[in-house]
């Protein structure tokens, strides 16, 4: 029996629940020569501001136990070059494009979103209110509930595209931020972005990253991310895209049981750019083994108590 892997997030239709995470897959086209990026559930683009950004001076990453820190600083080409240089080819390849939108002001978030709404081939907006690595914008909207509500509701008015704010785990109660997004009209939420973290070279006593601090990702953070997805699933009705340290199909399934409708995979793609088929195959065989017809039947099904 064929297993139904499709997922709906607002008006966004995904052929399967496996999405390449923003900041971990370039603009997608980098991988098009080696794999069929149209077969992914979706591709979350690198974060885009209105204008191009250079990002931070290297070193931008450092490896940590079962994880890594990054402080890339949202280097990017800006929304207009994305639309003119990347989208046509992404469209041709049949990619489901979830464009990660950044801003330093609410106006910028809205302007970038409007440009994407007018473009052909954008399927959803992931609102980046959670990057820990830049001073202005981003996380300042993701750490104060009123600001989260303000930016999400403003962008909601600026676009008809499915709107998915990406939440930071660097708050006390992530579920309350998911609720703000739901109240402001979001179609879903994605979480978690990286955990603000630090690594120090003990010989030089300098931080290992030029930026000082960076975001922790990889298997090291997975149990915390699963807990946060679970908390949000108890708090909101809109679909959740879960992420944080997924490396294999078992990890995907854990997030879905915790409450995720779909997942994103980031750091694992650095380790294995061909991880995608393994995840989808593993998911399908789990569904067969447990006689699950539709992947949506598995979401938020954790057994509580004994």
């Amino acid at each position, binding site marked *: 029996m064929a297993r139904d892997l499709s997922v709906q997030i607002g008006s966004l239709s995904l052929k399967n629940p496996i999405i390449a995470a923003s900041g971990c897959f370039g603009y997608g086209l980098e991988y098009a020569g*080696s794999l069929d990026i149209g077969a992914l559930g979706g591709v979350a683009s690198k974060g885009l501001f209105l204008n191009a950004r250079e*990002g931070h001076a290297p070193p931008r990453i450092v*490896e940590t136990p079962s994880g890594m820190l990054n402080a890339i600083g949202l*280097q990017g080409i800006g929304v207009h070059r994305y639309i003119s240089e990347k989208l046509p080819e992404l469209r041709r390849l049949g990619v489901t494009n979830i464009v990660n939108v950044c801003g330093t002001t609410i106006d910028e978030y809205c302007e970038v979103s409007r440009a994407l709404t007018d473009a052909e081939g954008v399927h959803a907006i992931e609102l980046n209110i959670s990057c820990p690595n830049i001073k202005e914008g981003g996380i300042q909207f993701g750490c104060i509930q009123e600001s989260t509500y303000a930016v999400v509701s403003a962008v909601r008015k600026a676009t008809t595209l499915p709107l998915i704010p990406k939440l930071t785990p660097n708050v006390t109660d992530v579920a309350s931020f998911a609720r703000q997004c739901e109240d402001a009209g979001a179609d879903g939420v994605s979480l978690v972005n990286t955990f603000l973290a630090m690594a120090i070279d003990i010989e030089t006593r300098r931080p290992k990253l030029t930026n000082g601090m960076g975001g922790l990702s*990889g298997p090291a953070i997975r149990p915390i991310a699963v807990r946060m997805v679970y908390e949000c699933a108890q708090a909101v009705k809109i679909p959740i895209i879960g992420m944080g340290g997924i490396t294999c199909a078992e990890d995907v399934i854990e997030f879905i049981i915790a409450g995720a409708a779909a997942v994103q995979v980031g750091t694992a793609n*650095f*380790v*294995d750019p061909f991880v995608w088929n393994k995840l989808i195959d593993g998911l399908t065989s789990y569904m067969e083994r447990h006689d699950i017809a539709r992947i949506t039947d598995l979401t938020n099904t954790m057994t509580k108590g004994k």
Partner: protein
Amino acid sequence: MAIDVLAEILTNRALSADYNVVEFAAPDLARLAEPGQFVMVKTSLGNDPLLRRPFSIFEILRDATGQPRGVSILNKRVGVGTNLIYSTKPGDRLNVLGPLGQPWPRQTADEHWMVAGGVGLAPFVTLAETLAKTNARMRLFYGGRSASDLYYASLFETLGATLVLTTEDGSQGEKGRVTAPLERALSARGTTNVTLYTCGPTPMMRAVATLGAAHHCQTFVSLEQVMGCGMGGCYSCVVQVNDHATPHFVRSCIEGPVFDASRIIWDALVH
């Protein structure tokens, strides 16, 4: 196109307490490889270390009939991942992803001079083999701290390269830095059109780039940066270049590792 191979280790040859050469069985990858490209090697099967490590493709291994059967890497112990690679055994399997990055560009100069420091020899065997096929005139300027840092020089001699060896302690070749005989040779070359290729410690590459510019020689560098993915996904391995109105970062995994040296903003390069 890159492929990922769970490749069996055919041999692991220790060259010293720090250097070794590991041969991987990877015929499909070897068939795709071009001189100057690199591979990303997963140094363990688990999550720690998590990220792969970049290595120049040192040799394209061939069977008796000349068919590609694998690739080798030249490894130097500097951290956890390279220590694991140093201690691998024949029969072990590691994931090897590649070939990646831009190869050395094909040049039509009268002579091709390679300038290597230590483990920076790695991208030159494949270049020398390619140049040898066209009977191109080539030299290898090869410097190390002492004689025990200089490997495979005789291979280059076999391929027809003229060797210029230097050691800082004078234990082999000329005593001092490799850029000293390079500068003399550039000054003495007359009207000969020379292309320079360099890989090694950043100060050495910078000095070679400076000499190349001063002597109007096309100069290419192969840079090694801290790298997350090798495919252009993570934006961690950037180097700053100057070919637009303002300096900007480009990814060394997909625009490099080979760059025209005149593009590089050396002050911004991480050592």
